[in-house]
């Protein structure tokens, strides 16, 4: 594994649960990988897969989407749709052998600061295993 590799991970966090969970991780001074740059969205269902794709094709080494646990969605059902959309995108990537592990969907509640830290640490670990997103070096978009 390339030790010098500093991953760039985009973390889409839903405003109501996961963003609050990330804040709680901060309040508790837990350690969250610096590779994750959080982007707040109102609901995981806001995430147009095209945006996730855009992130990967702009060279993100990983994209984490974190939302309320199923059934907890502030808007009722948003995360159920998000789950299907991202699953579809993962399937597309998987069929083409495009490292679908670079995309991950997780449920993190507002009280799960620790879980947020764990989830991000684990994802960061996985991304380091995968190494840099080949998109960059291939000059592709």
């Amino acid at each position, binding site marked *: 594994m390339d030790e010098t590799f500093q991953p760039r991970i985009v973390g889409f966090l839903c405003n109501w649960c996961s963003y*609050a969970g990330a804040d709680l991780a901060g*309040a508790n001074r837990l350690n969250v990988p610096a590779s994750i740059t959080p982007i707040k969205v109102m609901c995981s269902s806001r995430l147009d897969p095209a945006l996730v794709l855009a992130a990967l094709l702009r060279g993100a080494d990983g994209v984490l989407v974190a939302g*309320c646990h199923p059934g*907890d969605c502030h808007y009722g059902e948003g995360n159920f749709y998000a789950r299907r959309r991202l699953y579809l995108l993962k399937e597309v990537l998987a069929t083409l052998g495009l490292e679908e592990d670079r995309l991950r969907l997780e449920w993190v*509640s507002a*009280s799960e*600061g*620790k879980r947020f830290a764990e989830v991000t640490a684990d994802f960061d670990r996985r991304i380091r295993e995968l190494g840099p997103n080949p998109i960059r070096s291939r000059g592709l978009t």
Partner: protein
Amino acid sequence: MARSGDILVIGAGIGGIKASQLLSKAGHQVHMVERTAHIGGTSIKFEDVFPNLECATCMLSPLEQELLQDPRIHLLTLTELEGLEGSPGDLTARLRQKARFVNLDNCIGCGACYDACPASAINEFEEGLSQRKAIYVPCAGALPNVPHIDPEVCIRFKGEECVACQEACVFEAIEYAQEDKALELKAGAVLVAVGSAVMDAKQLKRFSYGTHPGVFTALELERLNASNGPTEGHIRLRDGREPKRIALVHCVGRRERTLCSAVCCRYLLKFRHYLRHKLPCAEVCEYHTDLCLPNKGDQHFLGEMAPGGEGLMRAEVVRVEGEGDSLKVVLSRDGQEFSETFDMVVLSPALIPSDGVAELAQKLGVELADDGFLAVKGVASSRPGVFILGGASGPKDIRETVIEAMAAAGEARRTIMAKEDGE
């Protein structure tokens, strides 16, 4: 004569919050008085709430944030009622606000002071399962995110020359000189939302609570399971072992108190969900006399938590005896006695009037019921202009509390309006 459209809400639990927000929406100035240093009441102790197993924090913290930012809601923490004079539409409340010793405006909640503080004590909010400092917030995420100094614990207030927290605070937020304040407020009506308390299980010796470490109360299990709790959500015995056989005991104190606490059946069923996730290997037995499932969705919830009644048994727990590390639970069913052995026993103690309710009733000039809860007719107390909601007038679940909160808010509004028309 001056009349006031303001409303005084006592208690910042879910009931008080809902009532205040409804009143604020309706255009009233609300004075919200909370005895502790933080809002949220009992509900914020829960990880999930029945029957949808929703994450309580995710459900409540947006409400709390909204409340703190509501210009029409004036929150007074560490404050208690001293007396209430006047008539509906023109009440004067005398309040006493304890010193926080932390400046609410300066503090940004960074928590630097906790680490600095040398004095620690048992954390009541965590059901005594963890320690806290003399300057503290009860749990991560508690709002307002500003600690307070507990003078009972702080060594400075015991005469020592400690300024540790003050030195740790770069915001000059620590103010040892603060003193308790007497306040007076005008209000048209008063809402009492002080909630209920949980019976001290030690009183029921037969359950060995407090004498055997394997016996827990429901709230203790709630905190053990809470991801922001003392064990970060790991359900463990007091000595750190993983429980293997767990007994959930219903109706603890039901007979003694002649009341059904209304919520135990459903939260004990909820615990099945906690345990299934956290301790998939543990064996769980639930002992109940009746199942109280009053809402339309509850039967379905029962089916999900205990498919085919698995792990459910209709039997009365006669007593719980310690046997070394483990616990012998003596049961009786149709007159037959028998026993089972566990390493963890979780009790569901009855809900009782919150402490100090009798005094509060006096100060409010309202009647108590024979069982110590506040006497009500609907949400009306015995004193016009004073309304009671939620646990203060008997065991309630969140849903019922919220309904009463809205009803009480409405009634309070109407008394004021009626008065104003009367002008």
